[in-house]
């Protein structure tokens, strides 16, 4: 639970309980002030001045000051920390050099007094305040050593109490939390690897809130007693099939469009995912600004798929590899997709490996098609458009379609610099339409999270971003 080392979802959740960033996410995917009371940005979009809360204390009683912000960001970027996630801070002037071992400080980072932090960016980056709410940028005290992750100390609503590895995490209310203490006294996160066991724990009444697996969700929705306990909300999670645009016939846009027409997303969504999602018409989810409701999904049209394949010079269809991990719904999704593709004459061979191997192959560009899911780190359309499709991010950066379109890049770059929110959202929509026509992926659906909540729990809201629920408003009546 060391923020500087947090690159995965479970760690990110726990970090959000114990720590604060300068900004934070709400359950409904808004970005609100955190340790920073307010901030302003110069008209050129380069310099941000953050005004911090004063009198905030860490759980160990030490004072939080602007110096902690500077040292925290240095720690995240310091090569000695061996963290894997410096990129959210790379927009800061000098940050990337510092992370590369060049220079002993970060030029763009200054703390003129205890309650002010001034950050200078190397170029305008309008969504920068959102990135500061990511778990990795949570503020830590000065004495954070290498074992910090075992005994984390933050300023957040919950104090760390105990971590029994592979068993549970325990937190206690921070009565002095600057934003008002949590309404409950303690919080416990059980670590249960097997979903059927977790479901049993919920049914036995030992677990208060449960993320419901897809199959269970279907049967519980049909059960009048259980369905009362279910709560569901669109998550910033996107399922798609990355199409490697550099491999063989897939380099032809007509073939990629044919793939999209061949897949019956509606049926897959209801049969495999218990209807938990909304068919995608691009990469920007309906809950975020920049979404264009007028754009139609490709839709299921086998004749059109065949026609496009023939036009592309493949009247007898094509052969492709369809890579999928062994986890979650990937195996079932890939089988359904394989059957759909076969109807249109696309012979897909499923390559099923463990998640790490599939990811590695896709990053190297060795996979034709890759069924995958993307969890947003921050609630902004940019978090879908830029990592998944900008040519800068080919391979490890997240663009495993190896999509490269200078016009698309230019639009996203322009959005990065655009300070006006309405204009920026228009640019997002435009970029999304552009890539949608190029079809560097087969668009599946935006997932909906489903939670089961015991009747004695009140005030829980399903978060859109995984780190957006901090349990401060949750109460128990039992």
């Amino acid at each position, binding site marked *: 639970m060391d923020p500087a080392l947090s690159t995965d979802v479970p760690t990110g959740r726990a970090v959000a309980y114990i720590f604060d960033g300068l900004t934070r996410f709400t359950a409904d995917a808004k970005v609100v002030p955190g340790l920073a009371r307010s901030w302003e940005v110069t008209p050129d979009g380069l310099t941000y001045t953050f005004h911090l809360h004063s009198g905030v204390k860490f759980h160990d009683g030490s004072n939080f000051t602007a110096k902690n912000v500077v040292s925290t960001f240095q720690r995240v970027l310091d090569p000695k920390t061996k963290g894997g996630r410096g*990129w959210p801070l790379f927009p800061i002037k000098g940050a990337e050099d510092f*992370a590369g071992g060049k220079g002993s400080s970060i030029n763009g980072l200054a703390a003129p007094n205890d309650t002010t932090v001034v950050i200078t960016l190397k170029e305008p980056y309008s969504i920068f305040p959102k990135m500061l709410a990511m778990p990795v940028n949570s503020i830590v005290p000065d004495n954070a050593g290498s074992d910090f992750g075992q005994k984390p100390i933050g300023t957040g609503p919950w104090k760390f109490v105990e971590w029994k*590895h592979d068993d549970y995490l325990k937190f206690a209310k921070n009565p002095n939390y600057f934003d008002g203490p949590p309404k409950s006294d303690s919080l416990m996160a059980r670590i249960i690897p097997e979903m059927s*066991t977790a479901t*049993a724990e919920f049914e036995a009444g*030992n677990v208060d809130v449960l993320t419901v697996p897809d199959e269970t969700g279907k049967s519980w929705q049909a059960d009048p007693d259980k369905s009362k306990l279910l709560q569901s909300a669109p998550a910033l999670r996107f399922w798609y099939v990355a199409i490697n645009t550099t491999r063989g016939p897939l380099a032809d846009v007509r073939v990629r469009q044919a793939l999209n027409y061949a897949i019956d997303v509606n049926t897959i969504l209801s049969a495999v995912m218990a209807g938990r999602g909304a068919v995608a018409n691009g990469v920007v989810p309906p809950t975020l600004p920049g979404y264009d409701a007028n754009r139609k999904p490709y839709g299921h049209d086998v004749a059109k798929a065949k026609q496009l394949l023939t036009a592309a010079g493949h009247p007898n269809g094509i052969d492709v590899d369809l890579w999928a991990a062994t986890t979650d719904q990937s195996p079932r999704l890939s089988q359904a997709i394989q059957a759909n593709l076969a109807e249109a004459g696309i012979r897909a061979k499923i390559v099923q490996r463990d998640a790490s191997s599939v990811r590695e192959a896709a*990053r190297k560009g060795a996979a034709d098609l890759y069924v995958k899911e993307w969890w947003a780190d921050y609630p902004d359309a940019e978090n879908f458009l830029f990592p998944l499709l900008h040519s800068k991010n080919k391979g*490890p950066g997240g663009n495993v379609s190896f999509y490269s379109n200078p016009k698309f890049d230019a639009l996203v770059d322009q959005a990065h610099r655009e300070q006006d929110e309405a204009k920026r959202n228009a640019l997002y929509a435009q970029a999304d339409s552009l890539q949608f026509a190029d079809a560097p992926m087969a668009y599946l659906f935006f997932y909906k999270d489903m939670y089961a909540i015991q009747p004695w729990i009140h005030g829980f809201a399903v978060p859109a971003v995984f780190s957006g629920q901090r349990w401060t408003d949750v109460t128990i009546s039992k």
Partner: protein
Amino acid sequence: MLAFIVRRLLLAIPTLFGVLVVTFLLLNVAPGDPVTEMVGERADSATIARLRKDLHLDEPRLKQFALYAGGVVRGDLGNSYITQRPIIRDILERFPKTLLLAGSAMLLASILGITLGVLSARAPGGWFDRLGLGVAYLGISFPVYWVGLILILIFAVMLRWLPPSGYGGIKYLILPAFALGSRSIAFLARVTRSAMLDVLGGDYVRTARAKGLKERAVIVRHALRNALIPIITVLGLDFGYYLTGSILTETIFSWPGLGRYVVNAITRRDLPAIQGSVLFLSVVFVMVNLLTDLAYAKADPRVAYS
């Protein structure tokens, strides 16, 4: 005896070195990249290159192996790539829990399995023997994850007698120990039965009965003692497997043992954690085998080691 133990321990060294080499080679041949797992879904190439260098993953294989083996010889299993904690601390924290689970499963299995086997052997072909055969077939045929889920369903969800999962007092131990031990109960019952049938036909059993010993004494002191060798073999082998391979049981019952640690390490490509655990478990396996051999000598004075 002491010379025997020392010789066996010395012989374990090349075995363990072999384990070290094979694990290292397999992990290097297997697909998947540890750095990919460290950096998460979105990363930049400079960070990836820097981490590879830090972890010596850009060095030639032979040098990587030398670095690792050198550490092992000095008693250093390295640090986890993901949490950066020393591997040995992670292992020592989890192994006692695996030991507790495996030990309880074996205890349960020996009590139930041997009793079942002895009672079956007393009247071969009788109703109890047939019942025992049925139970044994079920125990051997049902996979442990199925048994585990059914136990949770019945005893935790429907009857609510026991908690479904987790780690704590004895009530948390009963279901996983039973699930893990179910195969051994069945297997031990069969082995005990046939070993008992072998010895019950022996002259010394007839003599014991002829001199008027109670049936109970005949069975326990004379027959069972002589039937112990195959039983010890099964116990030793199964115990070794339970200590090293209770992964499914630990996952289903959320038991925070070493099996789950290894699985997590594998999915996250945490190479030092995988190598360290495999090496540690090999040591455990060698030890259990040695103890089994010593138990033979204890059970049967004709077996002598020198």
